[in-house]
């Protein structure tokens, strides 16, 4: 087993991970230059926790320990430099003074402080009252993400998370609990968003009901669906991408353990770049089951802002992502961090289930790859610290098309 795990068990595996595993699905939010919004690593991310209970059955101290353990899952990645520090209880803000966010008005006050970049609160909604007031639906387990960014520096300034205590209150009504492991896996995923990571499609068969043991082992924490509490353990994909965004230096760091594979996806003319194809690197040099256990992914054109419909990939009118570069050389470009090793590279459509809020990559709407998906290319052997570029893939049998700026 070569996956990262939480808590003490993780620490014992960090060495194995650093020695040679890999990658995830890309950044959550992009600047207009196509670069990811990330936190500064000059200091640890300073988050603050609620001074109230998570639920009637989960005390503040127990919740605090669980939150720390969830952040530790990401922090303990040896090849990543991201760090988190609990700075204390949620700080006073205009309209909020008691440390326990328990009403919509208090939540509003704290959201304002987060939006102003003053603090990064982790709110426990012990009774579901806040969710009831602002969403009106107890189907929401919680949410998290950046709440303030600096477009000039590209830095995330503050982040927030809100946890619905109804899912941990020991009661079957009004909503049945998740297990502690499921709840924690949910927020480890959410803290991935908090840290700047997007969703990832690796081993997509797991979304459709069938998931072999190897596929489950390689299933990212940042997969759009939680299908198992095993996703509370980071996959190769998660580890690679958090390391790519926050590379740790030195021995055991990113450059000492990971390389980068890049290329472009093309239509069958071999010239026109194709955006929105999911590109997966699968490791083939480490024995049985490795291709599904050790896989990393990214979406072609993940840094490109596609505002112009084209006649084949045809995003809906107005489906213009809010950010990203408009450099046309990036339309079909992909780049993946992977642990040193040998890989095949394959392309696939983004699953149609992953749309809108569960989307993967730069488009809200998955677009089926036209033509025929080619057989995987490779093997590509990548050494630590090296980049293998030009690993281009052409989809077969696509219809004639026009340049992306010409239209039909």
């Amino acid at each position, binding site marked *: 087993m070569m996956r990262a795990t939480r808590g003490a068990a993780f620490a014992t595996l960090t060495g194995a991970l650093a020695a040679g595993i890999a990658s995830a699905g890309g950044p959550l*939010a992009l600047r207009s230059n196509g670069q990811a919004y990330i936190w500064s690593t000059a200091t640890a991310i300073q988050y603050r926790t609620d001074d109230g209970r998570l639920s009637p059955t989960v005390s503040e101290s127990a919740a605090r320990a669980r939150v720390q353990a969830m952040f530790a899952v990401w922090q303990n990645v040896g090849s990543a430099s991201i760090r988190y520090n609990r700075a204390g209880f949620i700080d006073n803000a205009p309209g909020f003074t008691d440390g326990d966010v328990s009403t919509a008005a208090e939540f509003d006050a704290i959201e*304002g402080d987060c939006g102003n970049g003053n603090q990064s609160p982790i709110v426990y909604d012990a009774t579901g009252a806040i969710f009831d007031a602002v*969403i*009106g639906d107890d189907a929401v387990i919680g949410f998290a993400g950046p709440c303030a960014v600096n477009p000039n520096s590209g830095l995330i300034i503050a982040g*927030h998370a809100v946890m619905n205590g109804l899912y941990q209150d020991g009661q079957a009504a009004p909503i049945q609990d998740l297990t502690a492991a499921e709840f924690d896996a949910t927020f480890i995923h959410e803290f991935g968003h908090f840290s700047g990571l997007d969703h990832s499609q690796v081993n997509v068969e797991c979304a459709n009901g069938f998931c072999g043991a190897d596929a489950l082992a390689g299933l990212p924490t940042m997969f759009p*669906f*939680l299908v198992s509490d095993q996703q509370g353990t980071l996959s190769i994909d998660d580890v690679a991408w958090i390391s790519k965004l926050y590379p740790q230096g030195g021995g055991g760091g990113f450059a000492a353990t990971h390389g980068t594979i890049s290329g472009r996806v093309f239509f069958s003319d071999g010239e026109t770049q194709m955006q929105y194809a999911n590109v997966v690197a699968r490791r083939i040099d480490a024995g049985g089951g490795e291709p599904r256990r050790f896989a990393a992914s990214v979406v072609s054109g993940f840094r490109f802002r596609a505002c112009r419909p084209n006649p084949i990939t045809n995003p809906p009118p107005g489906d213009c992502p809010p950010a990203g570069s408009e450099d046309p050389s990036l339309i079909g470009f992909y780049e993946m961090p992977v642990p040193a090793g040998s890989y095949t590279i394959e392309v696939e459509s983004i699953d*149609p289930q992953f749309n809108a809020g*569960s989307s993967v990559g730069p488009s809200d709407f998955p677009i089926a790859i036209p033509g025929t998906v080619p057989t995987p290319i490779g093997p590509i052997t990548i050494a630590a610290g090296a980049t293998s570029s030009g690993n281009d893939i052409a989809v077969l049998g696509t219809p004639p098309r026009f340049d992306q700026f010409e239209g039909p």
Partner: protein
Amino acid sequence: MHAGPVSSDAHRQRLRGALAVAATLLLAAPAFAQRGAMTVPRDLQQMSERAADIIRGTVVSARVEKHPELTNLDTVVVTLRVRETVKGDARGTFTFRQYIWDIRDRWDAAGYRKGQDLLLVLNAPTRYGLTSPVGIEQGRFRIRPDGKGGYLALNGTGNTHLFDGIAVMAGQKGVALSRKQAALVAKHHGGPVEVGELMAMFRAFSGGE
């Protein structure tokens, strides 16, 4: 595999058993990611029961603005031209205000765009006048032409789990499914569905007919 409003105890026990043997696994998602949030699955019956309004309409406008009372909260205010009302009494134009928590939603009005054809299954407004689709993205169906003169609807989780347990529930609720609907419910595991059939089922489970 059926998943209830949350993964049931029975489901979780099966899941754990399957995990223990580490064989080929049959898994159902107990939670869906939704733009920085996670939600539990809602099926069509649950959505119908919970909804205050079920509307098909065209987005006239969508703008991001602060809430008038909770002045630090970002919201998107969406106005629809109502085409058909399945539940509730919306007529003409219908406007609702939805809380948004994800920074990307501020940039793209949570994906609501002028001209969109939507089927919205909406919760009742909260005491602060905030309204979300049931199950968030699960209650927001984008409608697109099917290329054959019809229209298809797809929600933000790809209609996954939408029809789980619906055949049984229809029997319990005394809802008569047409042959076509019964076939759809029996076979569907995800992906677009014909909007007319979907609306008819929402209407039936809402007590409309």
